[in-house]
């Protein structure tokens, strides 16, 4: 227990901030994932063949390759790509992209692929009559989307999005390989300097369990709140 005390002697405060970092990365990744999902869901549902293929490629490829590969590609490739772009503009120095941004982007791309599938399923399960009815009433396409489809889509996708959130939360542990100090990285450092890996990885496991447990409780509340009246 001494090892977990706050202050200079223990690892309590370090692990606490690492947990906050994990939460921050997860939320950022989930938000980035939403943006990707909102772009790619219409593509997947589109009647245009080319757009359809683009949407399908995104979800198939991202869900078919390991998460670690996406992270490595962005982490090692991203720096090179940024330096190349900068060299065009005449800057030849070394550019290091922030580990938080790369990590959140990589996990965001992954969680976006899952969210896309969730949103697609939700939209497909909305009664067709509603689309037709709004068309008959002469409602414009984007108002139809914002006022009729989107609210229902979000409500229908809450249960599945909670799964995506769990996956995203667990995937953030992989960012530790790029050096971002979140739970996994901090336990690795602590385990290395105290030579007590069993203890610190157990603490990490407990922290993750706590996060998944608490977020489950929260999401269940949301689900009850938004399914009122149904």
């Amino acid at each position: 227990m001494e090892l977990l005390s706050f202050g200079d002697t223990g690892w309590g405060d370090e692990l606490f901030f690492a947990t906050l970092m994990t939460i921050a990365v997860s939320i950022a990744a989930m938000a980035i994932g939403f943006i990707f999902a909102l772009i790619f869901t219409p593509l997947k549902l589109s009647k245009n063949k080319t757009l359809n293929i683009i949407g399908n490629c995104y979800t198939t490829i991202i869900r078919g390759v390991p998460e670690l590969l996406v992270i490595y590609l962005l982490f090692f490739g991203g720096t090179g790509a940024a330096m190349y772009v900068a060299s065009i503009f005449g800057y030849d120095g070394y550019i290091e992209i922030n580990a938080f941004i790369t990590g959140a982007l990589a996990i965001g791309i992954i969680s976006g692929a899952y969210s896309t599938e969730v949103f697609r399923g939700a939209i497909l399960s909305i009664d067709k009559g509603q689309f037709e009815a709004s068309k008959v009433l002469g409602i414009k396409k984007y108002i139809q989307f914002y006022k009729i489809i989107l609210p229902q889509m979000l409500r229908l996708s809450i249960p599945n999005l909670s799964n995506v959130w769990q996956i995203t939360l667990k995937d953030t542990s992989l960012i530790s390989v790029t050096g971002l100090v979140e739970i996994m990285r901090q336990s690795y450092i602590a385990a290395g300097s105290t030579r007590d890996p069993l203890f610190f990885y157990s603490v990490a496991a407990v922290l993750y369990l706590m996060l998944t447990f608490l977020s489950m409780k929260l999401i269940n509340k949301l689900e009850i709140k938004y399914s009122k009246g149904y």
Partner: protein
Amino acid sequence: MISIFPSLLSGAVITLQLLVSSMFFGLIIGLIFAILRINKNPIINKFAYGYSYFFRGTPLLVQLYLIYYGLANIEFLRNSFFWVIIKEPYWCAIIAFSLNTGAYTSEILRSAFQTIKKGYIEAAQSLGVTKKITFYRIQLPIAIKQSLPAYGNEIILMLKGTSLASVITIMDLMGEARKVNVLTFKPFEAFITAGIIYLFITFIIHNIIKYLEKKYGFQT
């Protein structure tokens, strides 16, 4: 790009070995825990639930580190016969992956067991079929058939999971790709080629499961 192909393929063989052995052990573990989960004894039930909750609620990386770095920290394990196994990263990876996929498999099988229509079991009972035979001849085949699609997803998730073995020094497909990246400073070639191989394996698994579903799929 062609020059890096042989080394990546040798890595892919390790990846497949890891996948096949952990799926094999995982299926056995999953089946045992699924049976424990549908047991009515609350202690056995809670134990099985705790197992699946822990392994599904924590990242695979934590489990891998716990087994690879953590178990080596326990004095009596180091002095026992098990040390032969847990000192090898390869076996640690297989243990971690098997326990992880075992937890997911047990959930898949449990839900399959629970969705079996009660009428089947009641019919078997009224025909005087013993409990054991009911389980082996009726419940188990139906559960396996019903869980095929979900299990196919689990195999693909595990294939992606095996890439974590590279973090504990195993030269699987991911490990080889990392090595190529370090040696040649060509991240795009290394990782994209590895990605294509992963996609190819995913594609094959997907099609095998689809074929099995068609052949043995359970129609209700």
